[in-house]
């Protein structure tokens, strides 16, 4: 008798990303249409059209000055803070105009959190760093609730076990990798829909980087994540969708595995293989 299991066709190998495939093609979480950005008249982004899928990691890659960070900062209107910056076109979050006249930017940035290149904890205790957001947004009525949010956020950020006995210690005493995970805990404490990450690992060593990447992979089941990274290997490891920017244009956006094995645009191919000429 031949073992029945031996005569099955091979199971189609699914990489971890496929767990999102059922939601990945539904309505985009974020939709950018004809987005142009200029700084004091110098155009930084030209006619970018990009749909960002819900509950997936989208990586923005490209050489320095290609506009990827500028684009990221348009999504939660961080560019509003820069003098001379003009944004035209349309960006929607769940079909609502991010730049609409009645949008409260504070509320918008609660829904779209951000993690920066350099960990930037407040000069306060570990506890206060995480509690600050939910407290100012009125998300916790009592101290117990706040404790719960802090604990839950630190657990989700993979930091709880390392800090649970010193929550009152200053956050600045943590290592760089721990500080970055604290910043992620701080971002998720206010229950955002989207987390923007601007080169979150560039100041970290490989072990701390791996922890953040593991965390990103875990968080994507709950949040929509957009990450700017200079490391193509990181984009390949963490993202399901990858967008390549060049000279302010969005050249190509596709499944990460397509971008890194068989990109369709010559410029993308040259960039991912490190070629010139």
């Amino acid at each position: 008798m031949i073992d029945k299991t031996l005569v099955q066709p091979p199971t189609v190998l699914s990489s971890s990303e496929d767990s999102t495939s059922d939601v990945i093609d539904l309505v985009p979480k974020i939709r950018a249409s004809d987005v142009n950005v200029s700084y004091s008249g110098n155009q930084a982004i030209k006619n970018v059209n990009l749909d960002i899928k819900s509950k997936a990691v989208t990586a923005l890659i490209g050489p320095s000055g290609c506009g990827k960070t500028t684009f990221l900062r348009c999504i939660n209107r961080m560019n509003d803070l820069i003098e001379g910056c003009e944004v035209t076109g349309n960006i929607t979050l769940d079909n609502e105009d991010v730049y609409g006249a009645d949008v409260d930017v504070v509320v918008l940035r609660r829904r779209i959190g951000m993690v920066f290149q350099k960990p930037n904890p407040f000069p306060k205790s570990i506890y206060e760093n995480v509690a600050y957001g939910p407290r100012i947004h009125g998300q916790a009525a009592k101290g117990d609730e706040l404790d719960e949010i802090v604990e839950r956020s630190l657990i989700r950020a993979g930091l709880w076990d390392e800090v649970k006995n010193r929550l009152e210690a200053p956050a600045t005493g943590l290592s760089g990798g721990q500080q970055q995970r604290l910043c992620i805990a701080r971002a998720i404490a206010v229950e955002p829909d989207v987390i923007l990450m601007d080169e979150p690992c560039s100041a970290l060593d490989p072990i701390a980087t791996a922890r953040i990447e593991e965390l990103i992979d875990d968080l994507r089941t709950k949040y929509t994540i957009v990450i700017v990274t200079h490391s193509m290997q990181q984009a390949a490891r963490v993202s399901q969708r990858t967008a390549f920017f060049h000279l302010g244009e969005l050249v190509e956006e596709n499944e990460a595995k397509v971008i890194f094995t068989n990109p369709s645009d010559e410029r993308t191919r040259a960039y991912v293989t490190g070629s010139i000429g």
Partner: protein
Amino acid sequence: MNERHIVSAYDKDLQQLETLVSEMGGLVEAQLSAALDALVKLDPDAAAEVISRDKIVDDYESQIDLHTTEMLVLRQPMAQDLRVILVALKLASNLERMGDYAKNISKRTVTLSGTPTVTSATQSIKRMGDKVLEMIKEVLDAYARRDTELASAVILKDEDVDRMHTNLFREFLEMMTTDSQHISLGTHLIFIAKDVERVGDHATNVAEKIHYMLEGSMPVGERPKDDRSSGILVEPGEGE
């Protein structure tokens, strides 16, 4: 292509890898050609040389395995570079098998030399072998010139080889049925013909991998096949 990598040592690594694969391919082509000549002439010395040279083919495969592994780790290749490196690995293993078949043919040639043989039979195998050699030459050209069309043309040629093999199989069965003196000879010839046919299959694999390397996808459609030898029966008296 004028394009080059920013890290120029990467280009040298890739060039070295392609050189290794091309050299290995040339060696395998020479091995099959020498094995077929030795068969036709029933020259045991020439056959013995083929057998001993197989070690060099194996060494090439080890070299390519090592080189590709190092490149995967050190260069972390992407896109076309990744495909070039992965395909080099696949090509090396296919070429190594092709080299083994040339060796197997030569082993049987050594056995057959000194025994009475049927010249027309070895000539028939040689004809099929020449067709396979043509496939190898073209597939190696397709690799060196990065020519998808040529690679696709090679895939189509395997059907001719299959057909020739089917005819040879019938011919040798009939030879054995007609004269039981020829059973030893005929059995060896059937195996030799099968070895040549298998080399053609591997050349087709190589062509498919080259297509993948250049286009990022396997060729579409079924591979044409026409080997019907598995369905042939020759009853006693039929071949007379």
